[in-house]
């Protein structure tokens, strides 16, 4: 069956949503449209601050000035940063999970190389010139729209995607638009772009000035809940690189986590029922050092955590192969280790949302062919 789709990304930086196949055409109506949303956390999110280990008091001891005391309870081993209170609500509804002590297989602590790899999905910086999500979308046969200028590497595939990002600019008069339609007729690519531009839904044409995450998330959610709407969205949150004044509950890292929390909340709210057929995952380049530095911040580290929300999760859980945070457990004696290749989480999520077998995605999207399949551990098939 020929399936035409569009998708698009929006972000605070950028959102991309991919469009759904027109499911009314599908014979089996029981198959629901499923959505995948990735929130990129640039600057290295501190997994130990977002989801602290509370089984013993090691963390309090090594982070006396930045340890948060009023954390929200998850289980006997882990708690949640208080700024993630909306995410915590989702947790209590059994629709939020955390994968902990996980990272892409990169441990050299450079933001540039790390962000390149978290987006490309490779193991050698800059070697791959496309992104794992873009390639995954290509494999699934979707067509994309990125809501960013320019499009993040994560979404780059062989096939070009559409893009959108709010601005203050306005369209010319209707008579000019009509003239341009016939004028561009001989130019295939320009013509196609102009046709897409002039047939955008109103939601993309109004309120263009508001680039705040909550608003972009609302636009994305409203578009994605439609049966023929986009299927993939990408957001970016900047500023997790808190070398100084990272602080406790109200510090800089907390403020950034609040942004993530708002994005989760706004998406859940606008998606409505479609939230149950959605997965929202965070993505960051690495974690941060275990011990606080003398600027009350943290340095670049290794293992971090992934926050996941959505009704396609099996249950609320902290999924981890916990390496421990005693000195001897640490990576190079200083960082939380990574015991789960985070790409296996993303590959599993794509497999669920795109209805493509895990192995096929693994083979065609990632250079390492033997990522563990975590689909049945984390998600509802």
């Amino acid at each position, binding site marked *: 069956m020929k399936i035409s789709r569009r998708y698009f990304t929006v972000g605070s930086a950028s959102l991309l949503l991919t469009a759904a196949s027109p499911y009314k055409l599908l014979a089996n109506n029981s198959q629901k449209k499923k959505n995948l949303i990735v929130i990129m956390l640039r600057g290295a999110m501190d997994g130990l601050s977002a989801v602290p280990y509370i089984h013993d008091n090691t963390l309090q001891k090594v982070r006396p*000035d930045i340890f948060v005391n009023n954390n929200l309870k998850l289980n006997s081993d882990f708690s949640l940063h208080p700024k993630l209170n909306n995410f915590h609500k989702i947790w209590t509804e059994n629709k939020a999970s955390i994968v902990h002590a996980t990272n892409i297989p990169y441990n050299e602590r*450079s933001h*540039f*190389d790390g962000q*390149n790899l978290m987006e490309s999905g490779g193991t*050698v*910086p*800059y*070697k791959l*010139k496309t992104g794992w999500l873009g390639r995954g979308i290509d494999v699934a046969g979707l067509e994309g729209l990125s809501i960013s*200028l*320019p499009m*993040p*590497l994560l979404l780059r595939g062989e096939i*070009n*995607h*559409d*893009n*959108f*990002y709010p*601005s203050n*600019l*306005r*369209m*010319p*008069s209707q*008579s*000019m638009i009509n*003239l*341009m339609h016939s*004028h*561009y007729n*001989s*130019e295939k*690519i*320009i013509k196609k*772009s*102009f046709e*897409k*531009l002039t047939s*955008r839904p109103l939601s993309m044409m109004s309120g263009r000035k508001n680039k705040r995450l909550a608003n972009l998330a609302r636009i994305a959610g409203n578009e994605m809940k439609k049966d023929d709407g986009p299927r993939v969205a990408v957001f970016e949150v900047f500023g997790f690189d808190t*070398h*100084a*004044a990272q*602080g406790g509950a*109200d*510090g*800089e890292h907390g*403020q950034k986590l609040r942004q993530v929390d708002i994005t989760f909340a706004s998406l859940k709210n606008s998606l409505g029922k479609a939230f149950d057929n959605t997965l929202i995952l965070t993505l960051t380049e690495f974690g941060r050092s275990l011990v606080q530095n*003398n*600027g*009350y*911040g943290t340095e670049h580290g290794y293992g971090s955590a992934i926050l996941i929300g959505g009704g396609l999760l099996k249950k609320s859980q902290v999924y981890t192969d916990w390496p421990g945070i005693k000195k001897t457990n640490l990576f190079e004696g200083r960082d939380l280790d990574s015991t789960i290749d985070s790409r296996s989480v993303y590959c599993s999520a794509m497999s669920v949302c795109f209805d493509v077998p895990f192995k096929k995605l693994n083979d065609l999207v990632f250079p390492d062919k033997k990522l563990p399949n975590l689909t049945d551990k984390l998600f509802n098939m």
Partner: protein
Amino acid sequence: MNKSFYRKIGFGLSANDNVPKDAIKWATDQIKAMPESTWNGPKYSLKEMMNFHGKYNYTDRRVLRKKHKNNRQDYKDAKNKLKYTTGHFYFEPLWLYKRHHEAVNGSSPVFHRFLHFWGNHFAIQKKNAMYVYDVGPYHFEVIAPAMLKNIEDLVYDVTISWAMIHNLDNSKSIGPNSLRALKMSERGRSANLNENHGRELLELHTVSPRAGYNQNDVIDMSRVMSGWMHKKHKSTKKEENVPISFQDDYHDSGPFEILGKKYKESFGTSSSKSMLRKVIKDLVRHPICIDFVSRKLCNHFVTENPPSEIIQPVKDAWIKSDGELKIIHEAVIKQALKYSHLKKFQTPETWLLQFIRMSSLDYFPSNYNYDFKSKPSRVIGKPVRWLRNLGHNPYRPLQPNGWSDYEADWMSPEFLFRRIGMIKVQQDKKRLDHIDKSYLKMIVTKNFDNESDVLKYINSAKNSEKILALFSSKWMLKT
């Protein structure tokens, strides 16, 4: 005839430009010597810019982070103040203004089109604050002078430039058999190569993956390059304000083998130091390098995916002149004229500069004064803002392979909308009111062979949208 030539290899003709009598002579005269600068704003050297960059980085890292560790707001305020004193919001637009001024008001637009091309070929990806302080002067001080020399000099000068070494981490590369590695292993530490720069030199800057190099070639290229790094300061670890030098104790000794050719070093620093040039000398003479770069030039200046008959004369000029850039550029210019009937999609920044030059838009401020104490005015920040709106800032490519040069990557609903919207804003703000009907006709006559088609299309738009019609037309998007 062939008026699109002036947009293909330049920025179009303004109301003040005369249509040259001899197009080839007009263009080739511009690439034979360093053009006189028309820039009337403040002048800074790369060295001065590196000092601003260093001051910004190290004051933040070593002073502010400690001083304000307890208070997020105090830290933010102090960092902003530091940004003002180091010109953090000032220098990027200043260098863009200079770049645009040379393109729009200068008498050598062709030279600057080639400079823009090479700046993107040897891209400095957006990384820490290099786009603020260093990329502009790197283009003008490293690339521009080398454009009058041999391709070998250009590749070499770029490869050992502070900007490229800093951008691609060659200072983090230590030869595994170097003296330094030996010392480190005595202390139980391991020394590693950083292959970033070595790989990009092969992949992006010279032979491209088509040459069929393998991981061993990349490793040996990186070994050859080991030792080219920031001069180490024992007491400080500063890099932003430290020049590049060759440090033999970090260099891996030979032999090396790259793309089937063996290289041997004789004893002594000078032999080690000259090894990189020897390898580059061979790389730029590799047939795949000649094809790869000639193809890229033709793709940029003539038409997308050019057939071999378009590329061949450029390759011939390269081989015959043994890589003289003036000769190579001249061959490209001739192909651009010969095939001026073929269309080439213009990237957003080039299109913007053509719009400004052809419309004589009042774009540049009357002065570029800055007090280094506060946020620069909106007028100063304009180039960054406009380029952000178009999605194409030449100082901020996201990847080391620079910005794409293909229509499919730049033509999307949003990208098209940004161009249309940008002209509309200028029109709505009455900044194009100097263009009346006869002025518009003059611009069209100077710049388009199909004058009557263009005028017919423009005249079918209502008066307030005629300029919009011209600059958003398919003839401007694709030239």
